[in-house]
């Protein structure tokens, strides 16, 4: 077959390609055949590279315009369902004033100001890594940084969030290894990653609740049960497990938190038990 195509002229080969593109699927060439036609055409006429973008530049453009946005979308999809962007609901009063959701915008501004104020009180050590994860209500870009902390609480301190309690204990073999922000359209979520010995991961996500933002709590109450830890802790949790993973959701002040990953429900409940009573904590301790 290869020789057959080599014996054809360039025009005949081009006509075959055009016929292939216009043919219905039943009469189309096999991929190998089309490839042989293209190879034979390459032998007869060099590829007209001057009229199109060279492969290196095209790959770079592909990375920039297609792959990077795709990775950002995928990152947003790794959020627990309850923290993904809720369906857009616009109240009737907002529609009647030209479509701008003033309430949501005001809530966003106030929350951003609150978070900036919290960040200022953060301690100075490790400022470079912390600056890599600027957690604002609606940050311009997703960001991430790597570190190693023995607990989620110390990682939170490190990132400048000093008014939220987080688990001080992790399952055996786990350490907190990094953080990143994921920006959905209406909220910025801080993700803290814990990695275990066998490659297992547990993630804690933190988002700020606010008017016009929607609740982070899942709506499938039947699949989750309420968990109230021992002691004088004013927070209750919604917990559940399926397959090899477990999840927990809770609200602490203005923060909506989720903890999920590859661990048993018992391990997850131990982590929740290690959350101390409501802060404030000193901003530069507990590391």
């Amino acid at each position, binding site marked *: 077959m290869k020789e057959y195509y080599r014996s054809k002229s360039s025009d005949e080969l081009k006509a075959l390609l055009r016929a*292939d593109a216009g043919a219905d699927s039943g009469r189309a060439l096999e991929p190998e055949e089309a490839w042989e036609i293209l*190879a034979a055409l390459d032998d007869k006429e060099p590829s007209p590279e001057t009229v199109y973008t060279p492969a290196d530049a095209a790959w770079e453009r*592909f990375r920039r315009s297609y792959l990077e946005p795709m990775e950002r979308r995928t990152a947003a999809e790794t959020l627990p369902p309850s923290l993904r962007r809720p369906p857009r609901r616009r109240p009737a009063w907002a529609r009647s004033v030209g479509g701008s959701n003033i309430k949501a915008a005001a809530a966003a501004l106030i929350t951003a100001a609150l978070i900036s104020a919290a960040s200022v009180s953060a301690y100075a050590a490790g400022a470079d890594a912390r600056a890599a994860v600027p957690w604002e209500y609606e940050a311009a870009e997703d960001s991430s940084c790597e570190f190693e902390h023995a607990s989620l609480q110390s990682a939170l301190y490190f990132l400048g969030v000093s008014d939220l309690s987080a688990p001080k204990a992790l399952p055996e073999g786990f350490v907190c290894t990094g953080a990143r922000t994921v920006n959905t359209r209406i909220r910025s979520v801080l993700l803290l990653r814990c990695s275990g010995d066998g490659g297992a991961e547990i993630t804690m996500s933190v988002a700020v609740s606010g008017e016009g933002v929607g609740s982070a709590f899942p709506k499938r109450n039947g699949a989750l049960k309420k968990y109230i830890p021992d002691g004088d802790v004013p927070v209750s949790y919604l917990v559940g497990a399926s397959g090899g993973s477990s999840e927990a959701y809770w609200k602490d002040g203005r923060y909506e938190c989720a903890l999920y990953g590859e661990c048993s429900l018992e391990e997850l409940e131990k982590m929740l038990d290690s959350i101390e009573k409501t802060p404030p904590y000193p901003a530069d301790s507990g590391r």
Partner: protein
Amino acid sequence: MTTEELRLVEALYRRMYDRLMRYALETLGDAARAEDVVQNTFELACLNVPALIRHPAPEGWVFVTFRNLVRTSAKERAGDIMLLERLQSRAAASEGERVYSDETDPDILYGDLSELPEYRLLRGYVDCGRTVAELAETMGISAEACKKRLQRARNRLRRYFKE
């Protein structure tokens, strides 16, 4: 997508790019559309990378996907050109140079269609030989968002003609 998967896609891209471009150029006759089709093919490859890795002939998978997209692109381009021609003929008619003598709708005859943002977007895509990625960079949005805007523009213009 893992680093390994990305490497596989990049290797396929670099190996197949020139021949796919040649096929698309011969069949579509437009370098910008040809590049769009190749980029869309590899976007689909990235979205289906587990299937691509398991496939006994990944190049065959890419080629069949690519050929289907070439066919879709050819039809889409023909549709775009038709839409723009109809719009241009209406705009010309509104300036007193009626092209279609059977046009009687006054809204159409005197509507300032060339000012529609949908028209400008579609025209930038069809007439100016720019790829979706280039248009997206100009507008400061992602290629995916640009494709959606183009689709909305087509839908809106089609609706305009139906009304």
